[in-house]
């Protein structure tokens, strides 16, 4: 892909982001529910005190004025002050983001390392017991709701077997000073192996829960595309040449079969962010998803707007990466 093409794609981001900002702002502003009333809750308050509270949150201004203030500030990466945390939204989000990214990445790795071998095996041994088990398994994987599967894992591994913790990111005897914010990485950088193990024990169950639907999807994609590739003439030719079966499968077939898997994986990574909201709540994972859900219910406008914008940017970028990967893996396709 040429550099100018790349730049053009990046420039396309600008209208998308403007559109998303407008939608995020309007969706929040037009949703029924008054942030001030929610904040006051069950309390007697004078109209003057209520007006003062409204003024403090900047909600006394007309909608249009608020929108332009939001847009103007957002362009300077100022997303306002969280109604409840009373600190800049960007600070609050930055504290939570590494946990979410770390969990998503580990879930992605879990999905890739289980889905690809299983998908390939199922394709090679089509219609065998293994293939059928994998098919049923993947159907279950897509269908099992995360909140239920997560609780099931907790009951088994944390309550009955007591080998893994119920929730959290790391135990309280471990103290890790932040370098990157990714605990698995930071503990290794500090050379603190026990803390690394502790962090690993904490992330296992949430990552498996989060990665399960993706594993199922990727396995199906890999199996189907592997089957298709195995029917291709060049594979038959390679077999006819007398190449060892292993070499045919892994050198010739798999490389092409993985093209759809990789692009689906990149796009599905975006949906990991969405799935995070539930998994984070179940496992008490201190990530962004949980914060956003809480903020939506409290009509914490600034935080929700900034988070939606962040999700949108991530999703767009992941799609962009998927496109690039596709052209790299498959030189016949041009952007």
């Amino acid at each position, binding site marked *: 892909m040429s550099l100018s093409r790349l730049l053009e794609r990046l420039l396309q981001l600008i209208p998308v982001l403007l559109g998303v900002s407008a939608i995020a702002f309007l969706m929040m502003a037009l949703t*029924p*529910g*008054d942030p001030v*009333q*929610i*904040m*006051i*809750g*069950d*309390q*007697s*308050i*004078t109209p003057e*005190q*209520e007006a*003062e*509270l409204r003024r*403090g949150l900047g909600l006394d201004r007309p909608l249009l004025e608020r929108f332009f203030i939001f847009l103007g500030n957002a362009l300077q990466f100022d997303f306002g002050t969280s109604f*409840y945390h*009373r*600190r800049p939204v960007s600070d*609050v989000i930055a*504290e*939570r983001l590494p*946990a979410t990214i770390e969990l998503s990445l580990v879930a992605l790795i879990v999905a890739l390392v289980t889905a690809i071998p299983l998908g390939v095996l199922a394709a090679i041994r089509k219609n065998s017991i293994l293939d059928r088990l994998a098919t049923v398994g993947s159907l279950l994987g897509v269908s099992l709701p995360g*909140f239920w599967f*997560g*609780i099931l894992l*907790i*009951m088994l591994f*944390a*309550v009955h077997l*007591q*080998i893994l*913790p*119920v*929730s*959290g*990111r790391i*135990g*309280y*005897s*471990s103290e890790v000073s932040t370098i990157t914010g990714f605990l698995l990485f930071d503990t290794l950088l500090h050379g603190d*192996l*026990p*803390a690394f*193990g*502790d962090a*690993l*024990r904490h992330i296992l169950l949430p990552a498996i829960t989060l990665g399960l639907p993706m594993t199922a999807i990727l396995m199906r994609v890999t199996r189907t595309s592997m089957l298709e590739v195995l029917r291709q003439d060049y594979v038959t030719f390679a077999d006819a040449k007398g190449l060892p079966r292993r070499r045919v499968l892994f050198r010739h077939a798999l490389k092409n079969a993985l093209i759809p898997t990789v692009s689906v994986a990149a796009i599905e990574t975006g949906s990991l962010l969405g799935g995070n909201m539930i998994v984070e*709540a*179940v*496992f*008490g994972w*201190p990530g962004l998803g*949980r914060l956003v859900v*809480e903020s939506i*219910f*409290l*009509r914490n406008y600034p935080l929700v707007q900034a988070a939606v914008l962040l999700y949108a940017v991530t999703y767009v970028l992941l799609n962009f990466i998927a496109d690039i990967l596709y052209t790299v893996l498959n030189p016949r396709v041009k952007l």
Partner: protein
Amino acid sequence: MNALPRLLLATALATCSVLMPAAVSAEDLIVGFTLDADTLDPANHRKRETETVIRNIYDGLLTRDPDMRVVPEIAESMVQVSPTVYDFKIRSGIKFHDGTDMTAEDVKFSLDRVTVEGAMGDGQTSPRQGLMGPVASVEIVDGDTVRITLKEPWPILPAMLPNQQIVSKAFVEANGTAGMATMSNGTGPFKLGEWRKGDAIILQRFDDYYGGAPDIAPVGAACVDRVIFKIIPESASRVAALLAGDVHIINELPTFSIAQVKANAGTDVMTVNGTRSFFLAMNMQGEVFDDLKVRQAAAHAIDKDLIIDRILDGTAARIEGILSPDAFGSSELPAVSYDPEKAKALLAEAGYPDGISITMDTEGAFKDTAEAIASMLTNAGIRTTVAIGESAQLTEKWRTAGKPKSGDMYFSSWGNGSLDPFDIFTPTHKTNDRGNSAGYANPALDKLLDDAAVEMDTGKRAEMYREAELMINADQPYVYLWVPQDIYGVSKKLSGWKPSADSRINLHDACIN
């Protein structure tokens, strides 16, 4: 053995050793808690859970004992000089966590920060200003006495003061509002160790603690070295953490988990009477519930005892008026009997021999109970459909402060943390007040509530609220249902801790054996 299996074996062994659980230090008391604190600034927050955390770090002038009585904490004594003037003598020898002495100056500064417009810092007004009512000024009258003067009598000032904590003037001036959000310097039993946002708040014992309220034994430094608020929002996971022994206290134990927690060898259930009254608001501005007979029919249709017994697992107290049995001014009231036949007869008298069809709004969390209520109403001729809405949206629909409402019936509740009627009676029953979801308007009651709010003679005041309760008991703008208990799951290793109905989870006296 070739290289690959050997490598795999080595990795597996290494993983096993790394995955062994790390040793837990013995003295940590861990609370599985629903929500993280939003901020640690006592003047700059608006959530009950945030206050729960803050009150282990900061103390107030007054506090409440486990039986909800207001007792002195940082104040040594309180004297009411006149209906609008209160004097607080400040205890000496209290230290902040940074080692500096706390003075009357800090008390004045803390209260000004909440009550004076623009005084919180950066020209902002505290979002907690409304909780302090009509405070006119806070002055130091001699070295160690702080005087609060009100614009008008407000008898619930002592009941509201436990919600305000004392900060260090010097610390706030040095760190600003922004610093106060994430740092702390209180006089409470614990100081902030580490705040892992969204995950846990780790507090350490403050060894120079003055001891806390003398009326709440034991007095002295906290029992445990560290307490940790571990954030687990999902209730099933919170219960699992308790059963697994990961935590020692969990809040908001769901009623359906009570049996499981009791059956488990190492855990138990503790309850305390709550402060939130549940009711059905009937839209008196609507077409059917403007008739007293229809409202009475609804009240007779519901078997409260059955719902309390079967759905709430016995963890609620039934009410016949708005006040909780523990609230000031509450009294024995005429009970509305469960009598579906009488309900049908009342409907017929009101001109609805074939019954009526209505919709009941409620939040998702109360769906089970709402369905049970709906089936009882339907059984008595009030065919009820339950409509689940989101809290924010229902608030806008039902708390209209006098503006016309569109619904029929609203299954909801109102909290009364101060346990004073002023906080619950006035907003839910005064004409056009913000919580008056029934759209009830009774000038005689309005006057009575206004007078009671400023009546200084407690005996007379209690009598006025009884009169008000009898009025609403007769007019039935709401079907008054019950006050649920707050339910906690606790480890049997825990001792010295009692749940409290106000926002506090007071960990000062809690020990782990």
